[in-house]
């Protein structure tokens, strides 16, 4: 089952396309990181997935074939928006009451337990909580719904490193305990490798790269060797990014299953941060699985 599946998804604000021809399929059971530069369409994609926005073109379904934003989907998809907007004039306890009464599935005991563990006082006004505590509260409210899919929009963007760590730890714990799928957008690439196992890179409103992180890393390598022989490398491997330093060349290439480097060249593993930055610097490069044939048959191709 795909937790999110889009087909030709497009969203236009007046004359500007925030998303265009976005086709992807995110399988269940993953923690999916959605990354991309500012204005890439990450928030728009997430808002489409939770029904806050409707598509201009194409369609988006969640948890199999549920229409995004339908009551059936809302019952099973929890969303924590950017900056965790809650009712600032209500107390934490009242906020729990609001969430409990707005959802059929809401585990108030679990929420109270988590808030107690996080040392968030129930009688404090939401507006008086720190940014980290507000984010934790929003996440607690979302997790108490026992969602099958948790969608987080830039959840750690305004948190300090400690709060960021605590927040992501709570996500990881929930994933381990409840087996839910998570889709989150982030600019903090260092957080991705620790938490996510699936990556979607969005650029200019289109999916540039998507796949399991382990497979993406295994499918790329950094080749170092003499610059004058780089032509031989580019004939064998699609190059994502090349860097020349005098007579020395360093190429990040997609191996397409071939692991043997050319003679005179050294091969090094690529880190997730290097990979993401390389693709961000080369918006014309892409590596995409086919959305509908994900289960074992995904088509992967590189366009340079």
């Amino acid at each position: 089952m795909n937790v999110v599946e889009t087909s030709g998804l497009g969203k236009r604000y007046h004359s500007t396309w925030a998303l265009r021809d976005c086709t992807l399929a995110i399988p269940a059971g993953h923690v999916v990181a959605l990354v991309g530069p500012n204005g890439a369409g990450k928030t728009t994609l997430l808002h489409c997935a939770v029904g806050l926005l409707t598509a201009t073109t194409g369609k988006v379904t969640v948890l199999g074939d549920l229409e995004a934003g339908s009551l059936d989907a809302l019952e099973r998809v929890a969303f924590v928006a950017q900056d965790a907007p809650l009712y600032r004039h209500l107390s934490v306890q009242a906020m729990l009451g609001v969430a409990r009464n707005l959802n059929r599935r809401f585990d108030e005991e679990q929420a109270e337990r988590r808030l107690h563990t996080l040392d968030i006082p129930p009688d404090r006004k939401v507006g008086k909580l720190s940014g980290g505590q507000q984010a934790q509260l929003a996440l607690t409210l979302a997790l108490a719904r026992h969602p099958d899919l948790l969608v987080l929009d830039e959840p750690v963007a305004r948190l300090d490193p400690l709060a960021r760590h605590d927040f992501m730890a709570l996500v990881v714990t929930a994933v381990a305990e409840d087996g839910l799928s998570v889709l989150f957008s982030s600019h903090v690439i260092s957080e991705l490798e620790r938490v996510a196992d699936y990556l979607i890179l969005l650029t200019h409103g289109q999916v540039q790269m998507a796949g399991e992180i382990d497979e993406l890393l295994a499918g790329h390598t950094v080749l170092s060797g003499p610059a004058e022989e780089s032509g031989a490398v580019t004939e064998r491997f699609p190059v994502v990014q090349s860097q020349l330093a005098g007579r020395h060349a360093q190429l990040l290439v997609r191996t397409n299953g071939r692991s043997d480097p050319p003679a005179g060249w050294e091969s090094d593993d690529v880190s997730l941060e290097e990979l993401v930055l390389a693709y961000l610097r080369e918006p014309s490069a892409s590596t995409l699985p086919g959305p509908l044939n994900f289960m074992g048959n995904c088509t992967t191709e590189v366009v340079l």
Partner: protein
Amino acid sequence: MTVLAPVPVLPQVHEHPVPWRPMARVTWLQHRGGLMGVLALFCACALAIVLERFTAPSHASSLLIRFASPDAFTLLVSVIQLFPVVIGVFVGAPLISRELESGAFRFTWTQGVGRTRFVITTLVVLAGFTVTSACVLGALLGWYIHSFEVVGVQSQWQSGLFNATPVTLAAWALFALVLGTFLGALIGRTVTAMAATAVGGVALVAASNLDLVHRLLGVAPLVTSRIPPMSMAIGTLNSTSYAGGTLSGGWLVRGWVTGTGGRELNRLAAYNVMDHVQTAVIHGLTDPTRWLSLHHDAFWMSYQPASRFWIFQGVEAVVLIGLAVLFSFATVRCIRGRARA
């Protein structure tokens, strides 16, 4: 990191995700500040009415003297007439605009209840509160002015009071609440929506008092020529027929005089005829109607009998409730449309 976890068995999802009663509790939690403010205004108005009523003199002459300096009365009626506008401004306008402005809609509209059901339930709960409070306030005002009605110095037909009975005040409160909600959803800015609701609400109340009620009460009046023309004016009257007259407790719409062949006389000719009648009465004429008949003239009057009062109240209420329903649909369309924005 790779997470190895079984995909859980998904529970049955029900058609209606959240019952109404919990939704009402959410409405109370969210809007208790505004509702308490409205309740405070309601209590202040109610207390003022009760105090005015119990300090009012019991006999007619004293009531007339009291009516001659109507500061407290006018102020009280004005405040009560603006009660629906206050509801529209402080309860209706912020209802959705505050959600949009603060971004809290991204929390509320993604909960299991869904945005449409959330907004409709909130509106229904708030409408119940405002309609009940306005209805009680209208009834208290009616009880207060009854003492003035019996001595013939006030009548609920008068436009200001016509809009402040239990029926019409409740309908106005409902309309103002939904109008404010719609403007809030449309504009998306709380202060702007409140200002727009205040301006629109006051303008509509004023237009109703000065013109619309008179137009409504001019629909399908009864006509009679059996009214003695003494002290009667010609042309548009829009006034109450006070106690003691033939049309006691009714609403006078228009008076005119017809001459030979039943043709309506112009204003100058009509006043000439009326002057002749006045002169004849001064000289001992006892039956002016018969006198007019002998001169092939007649004084006519169109009016609404007292028995129609609650019918017109119902008509105005139905119009306002109908508009409230239309604005409710428009509000729902507006928040659904926000997904397409």
